[in-house]
């Protein structure tokens, strides 16, 4: 038996992140607390380096390696590139917050990097096994991250909840995978796809059952109703820096997960999963938007808003057309940009000993810091889907995808709930601009944070005026 070494070039960015994460783990042991910024700098270097590697090795044609378990294609490259940049922004926004709370430790960055690695594996998985591997690597890092502030009972409770429910979902997914394996005889997505295409769903009950379990697992990871229960509690309970992390890049990975399993693997069952996704999507949009109205905690409100955005995201996927997929991808990227901006502002408003958790904490922000107020308004309007903000185009392209396959009623449901959703975004804008401030401390930001949060807001406007570049990028990424 000969061992043939696989081609390692396509996985170079992943190897780089893995090596660096291990390196930081070791280096961090020898650092004193006041030198901790070295770990931080190394972590940033890793992410930016990985992003650069991705940019240099952009794929034209897909390459499969690691004995069929791994694929490097244009969609994966674009998503991984965004994941790295998003996580870099997350680390930057979290830095001062962590420092003020004595959480500025190497573990945060190492776990964060392992999470990024997990996401990259998910994005590029070409077999059900590597999908699961990446997912678990991400999830385990997240469970630990939520509990990183171990003295906080709320955070520990959230972590516990997340762990139990997350494991349940992983179990579902694994069960589904085993059924698919039983029905098709392989975990390789290409083989699965061919086998499924040959058999068809109607003839094979095991296949349909497997699909149902897979969809349940995916819905849990995405946070789609009715598998959303964990999301608000975790968002609220976790330290804001971790909420920021969970709320951003993992959504891109979750999107990729759905694409890999449902579209690449089980594409011929589109008729079956379309029905399921329609239900998930409508419920998510309805519950997310309605319940968000009742929240007074901004993190919890944003959690419900996430749920509703997941509903919109699913609209594009369930359309089952290349346009729909690229629409969803566009939506996911724009959503991450908005989520980072929103949680970023929340984190910047928090100070030592003070958590800006309530919507009321935003009162009079315009008087305290007009620029930050403006950025938050842009993010909120973008989430509401008002034009000249990128969020509008995200909504528009997914609606377009749904209308083009004749599901006009679904588009109507979507816009109806987005009107309802506009209310709670406007309420934040109302607090920022119309109310008087209860506190007058100026908001301190270091220069690099200021630049990145400004870029974040301006990017939303820029993509709102001229979305073509990113849209084309998404479209070409999915055509390959």
């Amino acid at each position: 038996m000969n061992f043939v070494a696989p081609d390692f070039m396509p996985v170079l960015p992943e190897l780089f992140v893995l090596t660096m994460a291990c390196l930081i783990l070791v280096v961090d042991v020898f650092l004193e607390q006041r030198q901790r910024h070295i770990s931080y700098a190394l972590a940033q270097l890793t992410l930016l380096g990985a992003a650069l590697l991705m940019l240099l090795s952009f794929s034209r044609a897909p390459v499969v390696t690691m004995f069929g378990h791994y694929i490097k294609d244009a969609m994966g490259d674009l998503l991984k590139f965004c994941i790295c940049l998003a996580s870099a922004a997350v680390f930057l926004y979290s830095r001062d917050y962590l420092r003020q709370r004595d959480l500025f430790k190497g573990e945060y960055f190492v776990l964060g990097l392992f999470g990024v690695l997990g996401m990259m594996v998910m994005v590029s998985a070409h077999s059900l096994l590597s999908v699961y591997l990446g997912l678990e690597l991400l999830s385990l890092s997240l469970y630990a991250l939520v509990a990183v502030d171990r003295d906080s009972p709320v955070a520990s409770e959230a972590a516990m909840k997340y762990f139990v429910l997350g494991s349940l979902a992983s179990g579902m997914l694994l069960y589904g995978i085993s059924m698919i394996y039983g029905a098709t005889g392989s975990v390789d997505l290409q083989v699965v796809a061919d086998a499924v295409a040959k058999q068809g769903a109607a003839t094979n009950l095991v296949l349909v059952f497997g699909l149902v379990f897979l969809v349940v697992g995916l819905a849990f990871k995405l946070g789609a109703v009715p598998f959303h229960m964990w999301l608000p509690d975790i968002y609220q309970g976790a330290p804001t820096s971790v909420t920021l992390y969970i709320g951003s890049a993992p959504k891109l990975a979750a999107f990729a997960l759905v694409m890999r399993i449902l579209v690449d693997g089980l594409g011929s069952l589109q008729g079956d999963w379309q029905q399921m996704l329609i239900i998930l999507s409508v419920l998510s949009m309805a519950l997310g938007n309605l319940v968000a109205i009742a929240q007074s905690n901004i993190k919890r409100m944003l959690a419900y808003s996430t749920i509703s955005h997941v509903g919109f995201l699913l609209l594009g996927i369930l359309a089952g057309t290349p346009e729909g997929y690229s629409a969803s991808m566009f939506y996911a990227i724009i959503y991450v940009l908005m989520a980072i901006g929103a949680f970023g502002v929340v984190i910047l408003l928090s100070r030592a000993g003070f958590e800006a958790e309530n919507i009321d904490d935003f009162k009079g922000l315009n008087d305290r810091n007009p620029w930050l107020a403006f950025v938050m308004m842009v993010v909120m309007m973008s989430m509401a889907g008002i034009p000249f903000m990128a969020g509008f185009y995200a909504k528009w392209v997914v609606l377009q995808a749904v209308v083009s396959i004749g599901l006009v009623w679904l588009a109507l449901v979507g816009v109806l709930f987005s009107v309802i959703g506009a209310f709670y975004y406007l309420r934040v804008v109302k607090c920022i601009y119309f109310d008087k401030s209860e506190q007058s401390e100026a908001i301190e930001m270091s220069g690099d944070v200021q630049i990145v949060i400004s870029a974040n807001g301006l990017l939303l406007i820029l993509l709102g005026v001229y979305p073509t570049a990113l849209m084309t990028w998404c479209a070409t990424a999915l055509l390959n």
Partner: protein
Amino acid sequence: MLSELPLLSLVIWFPILGGIAVLFVGDDNPGRAKWLALTVAILSFLISLPLYSAFDTTTAAMQFQEFMPWIPAFNANYHLGVDGFSMPLILLTAFMTVLVVIAGWEVIQYRVAQYMAAFLIMEGLMIGVFAALDALLFYVFFEAMLIPMFLIIGIWGGPRRVYATLKFFLYTFFGSVFMLIALIYMYNQANSFEILDFHKLPLSITEQTWIFFAFLLGFSVKVPMWPVHTWLPDAHVEAPTGGSVILAAITLKIGGYGFLRFTLPITPDASAMLDWLIITLSLVAVIYIGFVALVQQDMKKLIAYSSIAHMGFVTLGFFIVFGLYRHTGNLNGAAMGVEGGMVQMVSHGFISGALFLCVGVLYDRMHSRQINDYGGVVNTMPVFAAFMVLFGMANAGLPGTSGFVGEFMVILSSFKAGFWLAFLASFTLILGAAYTLWLVKRVIFGDIGNSHVAELEDVNCREIIMLSLLAAAVLLLGLWPDPLTSVMHATVDNLLQHITVTKL
């Protein structure tokens, strides 16, 4: 030479960029911000003038066109152009913004730069709505307008401003999202977002009906038509003077413009089938809302209701065409209805703007809008009283003022469609006169009502400038409407030719 300049882009983006510049001057420098804002507003108005002077009145084709690919994947383009409907409204927008900047000069003390910037950005967006020939571009401008207005009412408004501004935003947003779905639907049929392609798109009567109602939701909220008008009185009462002026003078016109640009040409058969619905709603607005206006105690609310009644005339004028065509079998006189509606829109822009400015002048001095708090203002503010009486007369539709021209044209054309229609429509002459003159009587004439009124000072130079500009416009349009109507003839004829040909 003029035709080579991207005039429309300039008129749209110059005020927006100017507004951003004003923002950067900052609230710490109110004086400089104000002067910069005024300069930008005046320059934008001057830039918009060549649109009129170089306008070719003989053609119905779009003029001053600009075309650039925008989102090629969806065949959406940055396509601008104006015809006889949009050009006058663009000029009106640029003109009113100058007045609004002047009106806010001394009154606004809080965050002056943001206030001025919001109006300048608003101006650019509104002009964008009128100039867009691409449906997606239109929608983007149409929705983006909500943000500055939301902030204007919410930051500088009255005590119940939060309620009013949220209501305004959500109402309008609700109306327009259905329009978005209709636009997307038509894109899937036509594979293009060009409004002119939509005009030619063949649609079955069922499709037309759905699309008609989607547009109706979007535009009737904006106009506003009864029964979706309830946001307007709230928004007007709470908005600062400038906000009320822009709302009444321009944003309401966007609803009317939408009917001309979208509903009539895209869904002519559904419009012909459902014209009774619009006509009924318009008559309800004219008569019922006229009575509602009569009993108002708050001056701004009264003018707000009067706006709804006057806008009822606009929609009546637009949709009378079908009845007239059925009744007489030819299009003679139909043009009068549409043109009357257009004249009414422009004239109402001037008059309602002027009346809101008048209320603003009083409110700045007395901090009350209640009619009962006034009385005998003419004794202390004779110059102001003259203006107020003039605008009141114009609102009542006195011949010689612009208010008369539009109403007269619409009533004349409803006569051809049916006697009872005209009979009901002419109620406006009685009701309009009743509520306006009664308002003027209670506020302006009589003995001095109380000690506060006795201490009032007459209008200052700044106020005289803005009021006399409007007075000139009202009288000019009333005595000599031809400069306005002549630019629309070709466009109106073209529209009428288009909508009498069935799309089925």
